[in-house]
């Protein structure tokens, strides 16, 4: 099968410029409304539940899940679906334990909540280390993916692609802040959901609108094993470890957590998670159809011929069912997806640098508003430059493991401290610090010692640590360290302020203190 992938595609360039023009117009509109730090980081707390639900979905559905999972299913069948499911099951946890406390207790970052009744400086520093580690690894994965993808889709050189992504994304964040970033996410989420849905319908038309006929066709042509678990999950402990990291990591991703500050109250935070879970679940159910559709209509060999990892399965499927114009549309959607996710990540990294480290640590919370606003923008520029630099430094490296690593650190460094600080009275400053630092560094160390790095990246024969993802060890370890250190270092203020925190958690920041 011949494909026009990799040569300049008129439709792709048209749709890409359309998306960039619309989002830059939104940024111009948002820039005129972004006059304070509260606007810059929290969109003036004016976002509705449906809007934030779409924006959360936009932040979460990265190009990796759209292209990567479709490709994995197209090449290996059922095994790819395990990722689809793992990426969704964290959302109920966000709903039950995280969303409402975050909205009622914090201002801009999740450290606000952890530091609420503890000593600011040590907690903020530890939380910023965890946040920056997660954001950096996630950014590297996205930027390198972006460079490769755009090279494949549009045929432009890798470095140019990185610089274009960096420049457009910086315009969103720097001028439009959270308001522009939110609307970019909304536009992107609608495009991605609409594009994936359209693609699925065009596949199903060939199978009398019956997904089972599609799956049956795949089983007939490529063997019944494509509908059964294969070699991807060989070791149960490995599977559990990846599963727990995906699940609890979702509830610790700083760019996701930050979204809960953009809504007016806890009730809206709640409804936005419902919408987000609806959209994301729907999207991952569509990946079942897209993956098997690509397997049957394009064929695994044709997909592997373009990209060994299978990442081009969805664009190739679009070309097969809808021609060059539809390929262009799907390619532009994939580009838009990367831009939007990178913008969200950069904004959350900037918040950790300026709000946590500069305002609350260096200036001890006493920086005047205009200084906070200025520092926030400087940090955004810095974040943008760093992500472009990382994209270029890691060119050609195998960075697929970095998303898993970002989830493992988020689950081990951020999630335990967040839950303990909100729900466990004896939690102390030293406990929080220990939990976050042990979480971050144990995850980093064990990833380094795992087969993910030792065998896949460094090419050694075996690895000292057996699990590919460290979550199963590092998440319980982080909880345990946080609790033991807390019990050893009694902190009277932290325990006494627990009641005041509960009061605000349930009645909201507007309610009077007890």
């Amino acid at each position: 099968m011949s494909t026009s992938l990799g040569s300049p595609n008129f439709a792709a360039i048209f749709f890409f410029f359309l998306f960039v023009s619309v989002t830059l117009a939104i940024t111009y509109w948002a820039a005129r409304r972004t006059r304070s730090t509260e606007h810059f980081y929290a969109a003036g707390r004016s976002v509705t539940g449906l809007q934030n639900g779409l924006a959360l979905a936009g932040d979460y559905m990265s190009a990796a899940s759209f292209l990567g999972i479709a490709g994995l299913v197209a090449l290996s069948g059922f095994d790819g679906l395990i990722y689809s499911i793992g990426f969704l099951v964290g959302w109920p946890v966000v709903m039950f334990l995280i969303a409402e406390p975050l909205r009622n207790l914090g201002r801009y970052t999740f450290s606000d909540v952890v530091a609420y009744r503890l000593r600011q400086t040590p907690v903020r520093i530890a939380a910023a280390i965890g946040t920056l580690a997660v954001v950096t690894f996630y950014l590297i994965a996205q930027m390198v993916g972006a460079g490769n993808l755009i090279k494949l889709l549009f045929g432009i050189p890798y470095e140019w692609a990185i610089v274009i992504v960096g420049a457009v994304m910086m315009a969103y964040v720097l001028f439009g802040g959270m308001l522009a970033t939110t609307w970019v996410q909304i536009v992107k989420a609608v495009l991605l959901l609409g594009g994936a849905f359209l693609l699925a319908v065009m596949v199903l038309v060939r199978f009398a609108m019956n997904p089972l006929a599609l799956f049956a066709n795949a089983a007939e042509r490529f063997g019944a094993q494509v509908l059964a678990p294969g070699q991807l999950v060989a070791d149960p402990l490995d599977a559990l470890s990846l599963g727990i990291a995906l699940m609890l990591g979702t509830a610790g991703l700083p760019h996701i957590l930050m979204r809960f500050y953009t809504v007016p109250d806890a009730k809206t935070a709640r409804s936005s998670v419902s919408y987000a879970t609806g959209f994301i679940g729907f999207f991952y159910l569509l990946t079942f159809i897209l993956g098997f559709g690509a397997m049957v209509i394009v064929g695994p060999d044709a997909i592997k011929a373009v990209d060994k990892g299978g990442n081009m399965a969805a664009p190739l499927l679009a070309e097969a069912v809808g021609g060059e114009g539809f390929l262009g549309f799907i390619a532009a959607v994939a580009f838009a997806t990367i831009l939007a996710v990178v913008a969200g990540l950069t904004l959350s990294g900037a918040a950790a640098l300026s709000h946590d480290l500069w305002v609350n640590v260096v200036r001890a919370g006493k920086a005047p508003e205009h200084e906070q606003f200025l520092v926030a923008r400087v940090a955004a520029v810095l974040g943008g430059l760093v992500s472009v630099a990382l994209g270029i430094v890691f060119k050609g490296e195998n960075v697929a493991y970095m998303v898993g690593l970002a989830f493992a650190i988020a689950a081990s460094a951020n999630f335990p401290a967040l839950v303990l600080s909100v729900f466990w009275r004896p939690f102390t400053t030293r406990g929080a610090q220990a939990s976050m630092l042990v979480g971050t560094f144990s995850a980093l160390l064990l990833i380094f010692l795992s087969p993910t790095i030792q065998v896949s990246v460094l090419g050694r024969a075996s690895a000292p640590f057996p699990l590919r993802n460290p979550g199963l060890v590092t998440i319980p370890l982080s909880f345990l360290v946080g609790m033991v250190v807390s019990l050893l270092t009694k902190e009277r203020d932290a325990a006494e302020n627990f009641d005041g925190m509960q009061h605000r958690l349930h009645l909201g920041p507007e309610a009077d203190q007890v």
Partner: protein
Amino acid sequence: MSEKQRALEALAAAQWKLALRLTGAMMAVYFGFILLVAWAKPLLGRQLVPGLSLGILLGALVIVTAWILIWIYVRWANSHYDATVTRIRETGR
């Protein structure tokens, strides 16, 4: 301890209990699925009707379970929890 504080603590305890149960349910369902994937590969490969293997059905059901658990929580929070919060705010107990 004031009446208001007692009411708040009761509400917090109820919220925590429900949140913990629902989180536990989600974990049990998801990890159950993962363990089946790891240990019962032939079972999950069995096709119930042509094209629908048990694995695909259960996988889709894990996603549906997430929706149902969220729906249970939202229903409780929108009715019971919000009403109690409003009552405590207004009457102080």
